[in-house]
Structures are given as C-alpha cells and as structure tokens.
C-alpha cells in the first residue's frame, strides 16, 4: 500500500510551519510524532542518525502537548512556540532519565539526573523529544565515523559521510526524522555536517547559549546550536535557546545593541581570498561567487578581502581544543558512572584499563595531544603559543569587521566525501575544519546555509561569519541565499539511499 502523502509532508515542512499546523489543530502532535517515528523506523536503519529513540515516551509527551494545544484552542493559556513539535537532540546534551552517551562506550548506560539548560528550554517551548542523535565520539571528528556505535550515512548518498561531529543531527534534519535538531559546535561540528547534509546550521556567539549540561569537549569553544530545514527555523530556535543562564558563568544576554537587520541592503560582505584557492572544489568556489551575486542583487556590496592569521587557525585550534579536552575527559575514570574495566588490581590500573577500553582511537589521540601540550616543559611552547595565536586571530577578525559586516566563504573545501575515504589520515580529516575553526577561536557566530548542489547531487553549504552577537545579520544574509538558491523544498530520496547503502 502506498503511504499517504500527509504524514510524509509533516516530516518535510519546516518546524515553524508544523508548529502553525499544530496550533490550528489541522494535525495533532500524536499524528506528527507518529509520522516522524514511522519515518525513523523505516529509514534510520540505513542512515544511523539515532542512538536512542523514545518511541513510547515521545507519544506520551505528544499526548500531553496535545492537551495544551487543545486547551489553548478552547480559550486557555496560549501554547508555547513549538508545542507538540517533534525534535531530536545530539547525544552530548544531558537529558534527565534519557541515555546520554556521547556515542562512546565510556558512557554506556549513563542516565543523567538532570536536563541541560538548552534541553530545558526546548522542552519549555513544548517540543516533543524523539530521541538522541549519533555523533563522533565526544564530538571529536569531522565525518561521524568516530561514533563507537555506528557511523551515520549521508541521506543524499548513503555511501558518503554526513560530516561531523553533529552528523546525526544534520542527517536527521535532512532526512526529515525531526522538525529540527540540536547539535554542538566546537570547531565546525554544526556547520560542516549542515553543509554536507544540506540543512541550516548555526554556531552562535560564544556565551549566547548556555553550555550547562553539554558534555564538555573544549569549554572555551563549545556552543550549542540548531540544525534546521530553513533559515527562519534556525532564527526561531536560536531565539528560544539564547540568553543568560545562572548555571553557566560564561553565558551572557545578547547586548541591546545587537543588530536587528531584516534585509541585506547596504550590507558589506567580505569574501576571504584565503578560502577561494585551488584546494577548494571548483563547484564550491562557483557557489560562493553565485551567492555573492544574489546578495549584490538584493543590495549588498560584495568584495574579496584578506583574512589575516588563517595559517594559525588549525594548529591553534587543535592545541587549545585538545588541551581542554584532556582535562574535560579526565572525569571519565570508571569510578562512579560509565564504563569500568572488569578486572584491575589497583586504582591506577582501574583508571588506565577503564579508559583504554572506554575511549576510541580519536579520543585517545586528542587526550594524548592535549596532555602533551599542557605538560611541564612544553606548556609555554604549545598551549602558551596557541593562546597568543588565538588573541592574534581574534584581532584579525576585528580588523576585517571594521570594513565588512559579514564574511562569505565555503564551509568545507569540498562536498561530502565517501565513508572511509579520510578515516585513515587524521591530518586530512582535521583539514575539513580549515574554514570553520576561526569563528570558534574568536567566539563569533557563523552559520551554514544550503546554496546549491554539485555535479553528483551533493549539497553545497556556504558559511556566513559575523562579529559577536550579529546573528541577525547572518540570518538576513542566509535568508537571501536561501531564497535565491532554490534549495528549499528539495529532499533526499531515502529509498535510493537505502538501495545504495545495500549496494555499497
């Protein structure tokens, strides 16, 4: 029997549209939730986006959301923004009573006793949590092949990676497994998979979204952000996530001076030459130029520019992020939760065996690197120098933003690569972050927006980067690209993905 078009459509429209239908009661939250759950059941065996699906509990939450919607419709208090909308969360977001494993053997069986602030805010918006999403182990990776459970496949081509580390979040948003998803970005972990999977992904200004409850990778870089099927959704979800949280000392309220630009007229767009070299896939470069034309057509001025200190980005990023990771991941010691080795004869052997067994190769590599760069005798040369480079990088951006309101660049040098293609070479993998880590080090917002497809039908994402708290400018520019690129409404063919995965 052919499935009706209705439920499938619910999985394709954006979250704001679905929220509208739910408020008008044209569809119930239970129907919408069931539509997503069915789709997950049917296709996620191939995609591998979910680590945990809350089938029964999500339906119960949907019933409860429906009662709120019904009450609102009969004159009760207004339902919150995303009431009854099914969503899914990256597995490094602490969820009370729901497994939170960071796709690591180390956290198998860990049930957090509390919700992350971002999760609390999503729940307060009425959203129904469908489950937890696959990722690179502890968010370390650019292809999602570092998940200890299973890799995620790109819904557009199941032989390819979805990007990482929020690969599950991007694939789920692209495949219509949730109305929107949350991911986390440390050096590009939202933007890169958003680009590979053809969805919108925002890494907010550092401090604008609380990190409380996000299992830390690199504390001075980590930010939680949305992955959505439209720019409007990204803006709306960011709105509900953002704002100071008393549980995160580094969180802030967006300053009152933050821009509220709607259009791109008069916007000064800079296009860093450093990311238009031959190392970048020609179709990606062409897409950057095409987007510049679209922006110009709506009144922006686009010029090429020089972005200083780009050569320092990757080394500074890997030193700083690994140093912080080595400390953040030290708490996984097998004492109170997570994996503990079966046999040991001393506290030291319990630590080393539990950690050797619990962590995957990439995580170990970063812990070792981070431990090394903080060690006596090397600290100043590595960690100290990286901090200086970071200040230099920040200053570089400040200089560029005196003449430009926003920077337009590729997200990655190329579109989604094949599973296994780069997994043997960590350095090649690290270079996937070459365009994205700058914004992370500088703590400024950057957004990935779908802007076209390459010859193989793979999505091309473009990155917009602005000064701190300029998210509204990014949304305006991204809105222009979204309107012009005509990617809205294009969906991956999951049946083809299933077939190609079988063939692979």
């Amino acid at each position, binding site marked *: 029997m052919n499935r009706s078009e209705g439920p499938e459509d619910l999985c394709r429209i954006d979250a704001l549209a679905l929220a509208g239908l739910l408020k008008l009661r044209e569809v119930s939250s239970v129907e919408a939730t069931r539509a997503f759950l069915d789709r997950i059941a049917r296709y996620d065996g191939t995609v591998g986006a979910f680590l945990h699906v809350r089938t029964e509990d999500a339906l119960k939450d949907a019933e409860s959301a429906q009662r709120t919607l019904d009450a609102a419709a009969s004159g009760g208090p207004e339902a919150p923004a995303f009431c009854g909308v099914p969503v899914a969360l990256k597995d490094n*977001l602490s969820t009370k009573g729901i497994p939170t494993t*960071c796709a690591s053997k180390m956290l198998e069986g860990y049930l957090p006793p509390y919700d992350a602030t971002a999760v609390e805010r999503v729940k307060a918006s009425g959203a129904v949590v469908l489950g937890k999403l696959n990722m690179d182990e502890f968010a370390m990776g650019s292809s999602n092949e570092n998940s200890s459970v299973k890799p995620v496949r790109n819904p557009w081509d199941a032989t390819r990676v979805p990007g990482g580390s929020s690969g599950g979040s991007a694939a789920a948003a692209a495949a219509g497994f949730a109305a929107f998803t949350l991911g986390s970005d440390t050096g590009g972990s939202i933007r890169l998979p958003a680009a590979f999977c053809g969805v919108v992904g925002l890494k907010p200004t550092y401090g604008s979204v609380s990190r*409380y409850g996000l299992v830390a990778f690199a504390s001075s870089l980590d930010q939680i952000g949305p992955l959505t099927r439209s720019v409007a959704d990204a803006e709306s979800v960011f709105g509900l996530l953002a704002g100071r949280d008393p549980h995160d000392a580094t969180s802030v309220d967006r300053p009152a001076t933050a821009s509220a630009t709607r259009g791109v007229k008069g916007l000064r767009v800079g296009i860093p030459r450093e990311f238009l070299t031959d190392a970048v896939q020609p179709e990606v470069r062409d897409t950057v130029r095409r987007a510049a034309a679209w922006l110009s057509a709506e009144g922006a001025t686009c010029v090429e520019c020089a972005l200083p200190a780009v050569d320092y980005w990757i080394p500074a990023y890997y030193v700083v992020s690994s140093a912080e990771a080595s*400390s953040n991941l030290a708490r996984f010691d097998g004492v109170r939760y997570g994996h503990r080795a079966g046999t040991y004869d001393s506290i030291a052997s319990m630590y080393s065996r539990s950690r050797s067994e619990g962590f995957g190769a990439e995580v170990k590599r970063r812990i070792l690197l981070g*431990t090394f760069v903080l060690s006596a005798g090397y600290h100043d040369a590595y960690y100290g120098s990286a901090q200086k480079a970071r200040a230099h990088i920040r200053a570089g951006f400040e200089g560029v933003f005196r003449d430009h309101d926003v920077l337009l660049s590729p997200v990655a040098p190329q579109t989604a690569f094949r599973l296994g293609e780069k997994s043997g070479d960590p350095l090649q993998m690290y270079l996937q972050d070459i365009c994205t880590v700058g914004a992370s080090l500088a703590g400024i917002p950057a957004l990935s927006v779908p802007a076209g497809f390459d010859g193989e039908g793979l999505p091309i994402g473009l990155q917009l980067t602005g000064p701190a708290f300029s998210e509204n400018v990014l949304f305006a520019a991204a809105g222009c690209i979204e309107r012009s690129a005509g990617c809205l409404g294009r969906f991956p063919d999951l049946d083809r993905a299933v077939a190609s995965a079988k063939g692979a």
Partner: protein
Amino acid sequence: MSYEIVCGLEIHAELSTATKIWCGCENAFGGEPNTRCCPVCTGLPGALPVLNRRVVEFAVKAGLAMHCEIAPRSVMARKNYFYPDMPKAYQISQFEKPMCIGGYVDVETSQGPRRIRITRIHIEEDAGKLLHDAYGTGTLVDLNRCGVPLIEIVGEPDLRSSEETKNYMEAVREILEAIAVSDVKMQEGSMRADVNVSIRPVGETALGTRTEMKNLNSFRAVQRAVDAEAKRQEALLAAGKKVVQETRQWDDNRGESRGMRGKEDAQDYRYFPEPDLLPILVTPEDVARIAAELPELPAARRARYVGTLGIAPADAELLTRSRAEAGMFEDVLAQGVGVRAAVTWMVVELFGRLNTTGRSAADLPFGGADLGRLVALVEAAKVNPGSARRILAELMEKGGEPGRLAESMGLMAVSDAGGLSVAIATALAQNATALADYRSGSAKAFGFLMGQAMKAAGGRADPKLLSAALREALDGAGNGEA
C-alpha cells in the same frame, strides 16, 4: 655541627559560607554520605561551576587580616590529577594569579615576637573523602565535602622551630576565627596544614633540601612532625647521606614519617586557566567595604587589654581566645562595670564553670550583656557575690534576666537595718556558746556568728553591711553583759 630548622606551612582552611563554592548545596560538616551534593559538585558530565561571591568576600577578609595585597583581577585554574575523591579529575584552584599576595602574621614565641611572611592566599575547592572499609570491605567515596570552599594560605619558609611553627598556626587559626570566615575545627579537618621542613647549618643562608608532610590536622601533630623530621634529616646528614626531596606521610600514632616513594613529586598538574569561569574582579570599593567590616583582631585586642585596660597578660590571653569569648567580655564591659570585676566574673567565675562542665562560650543561653548586668548588681550591692554565683549557675542552665532572676529566686540582698538586725538577733539567740566565746576574746567566734547571721538572712545579706551591723550589735551590746 649544629643545625637550624627552616619550615614553611601551607594552611588549608574551609570557609564557613552557607553554600558551597560552585553550587547551591549546603556547606556543612558531615551528613549521610553523598547526600549534600548535586551534579555540579560531583562533577557530572556537562555540569558547570558558578562562583559563590561570598567565597571572594571571605578570602578578601582573610587576606586583609593578614596584611595582603588584594589582586584586582585573579584567575581560577585547573589543577589536573586523578584521585577518586576528586570526581572531575581536576581541582579548581588558583595558580598564576591568586587573590591575595604578600602579607604577614605576627607571632609570639619564647624568643620574642616574630613576623612570618605570607606568600599568597588563594581560593580553591575541597575534595571528597575516601571511606576505607566503613561499609563492609573496600573503599567507598563520600562526595559531601566536594566543593566546600577553601583558602590556602602559603607561608614563606620563615619558621625556625617547631614551637614557632605551632604558634604561627595558632595565630592563623585565631585570626580566621576572629574574622568569622572559618570554623577552624582541626578535628573536623576544616583547618589542616602541609608542612615543609629542611635544615641547614646555623649561619648558612641557602636553603637545604626540603621534604613535605601533608594534611596534618592538629597543632601537636605539626609540632611533633617538625621535630621528628628535623631529627631524621640531621641523622641522615650526620651519616653522610643526603636528604631526598619528597612527600612523606606523617603517622601521628607512631610519631614518625615514611616516604611515599617520590610519586607525588613526579606529579605534573598541567595547570591552565579554568575556561568555565570568568576572571574574578575585586574593586577598590569592595576592598574598602570589606576592610571596614573587619573586627579588631585578637593580637590588637590583647595589646589594648593589657596596655589600656591594665588587664594581666594571662587574663587578656584567655579573654581573646575566641570570637565568642572576646565578644562576650566586650558586652560585659559595655554594661559600665569595672574592668577588674568584669575580668573576675569572666575568667574566674564563667570560664571556671565552662572548664568544669566542658561547655563553650559560644553555646551559652545568655550573652555578655546579661553577665554585665549581673556584675552591675553585685557592684551596686543589690545582690551579694554568693547569690550572684547562684544566679550565674541559673543563667548557664536556662538563661534569663539577672535582675528578674534575683527577684524570682529571692536573692535580692537584705540590706535594710531591720532585716539585718532580725538576722543578727536570731543568730545570737541560737548560738549562746559562740557568743560567749566571742565575749571571751575568740576572733574565730566572730566568723562563726557572721556565718550564722548570713544563714539567718537566707544568704542574701550584703556581707559588708552585715559584718558592720554584727560588730555593732556585739560590741555595742555592752561589756560582757549578756
């Protein structure tokens, strides 16, 4: 060869803020294991610290009391190490930029006063506790103490004997107690010290190789450990051996230390600035406000008591032992009574009773003002000293207002002539033999009759008035005439 001891202390004191340093959990000693904690202080994945600003206030107070500079901007840092009592596997402390820098504490020693320099005071978090075989066999972890705020007071190696070391630690304890930032209960571990000891030939200025003993939690242990370690090092040098820089474990029961196989010294803590917390800013206005809140410190108070009030040094010492006792004495004085009477009632009467009952001034059901009113009643001869002692005993049991207690206990002094003469007449009538003895010149008999008259007055007569009246009654009653 004769050697001198060179010793420096790192004193850890838990701050008595209402809540812990990073979370809202109650900051209290003990409790059922793992009940006073939350995701933050147990370092669950994703939990973040948020600084309790009261901790900053307390640390600044301690810094000012020890004459430190207060850093306008200080930075928390991670000290990374694995141990099961530290669930994050790093301690949040301060490293390159501590909160208080360069102070001193003046210490009395048998060699006279000495000024011991303070290198720095920084804030950090306490760890949990390991319970060995407390519940069946094996080691369990109690995380209740995790996140209890600490200050670490790092002293210069200025101490030259175990006595100085002990006195210095006592002086620090006294200051922290007086400014009310710590409970300083050594037996509960809320104050403890790491002791660094080296020796060098007398006259030598370079430092010898030092060893460290951690977590000593009594003055006696500190004093004994310093002496034992100096002796051990001396024996090594005498035997032509070298002192090895190491951490040693002090066993107070056996009175000796043993090496911990140098493991501790191989530690590389890989400090780096804590990215989850912002730098701590303290403005000059903050410093001025906190400085204005500082009470008179014990040493200054003692000097004033001896110099200005003329109190004997030994009494001044007793009166300034604790915040509660010193505060009480000030309240007694505030009732306008004489210094001598106030000292006598505090030191002899009150402290004497506290000593015999093992109670402390801090948990009495009455205050210094009450005791001051009682002393005033004695001074005004409205209550005689014996009655006043009974009233004090009652105050210590139940508290109350001394004047009203005197009334209700029927202890207001008998001082009117009629009352006294009735008492005397009764005494003389019932003790004819003694009266006769008095008449025949026995001085002892006067004392006996005085006692009987006081008894007849129900113990309430003012002794001076009664004595005068009795003498008049006896001598005025005639010359040998019965």
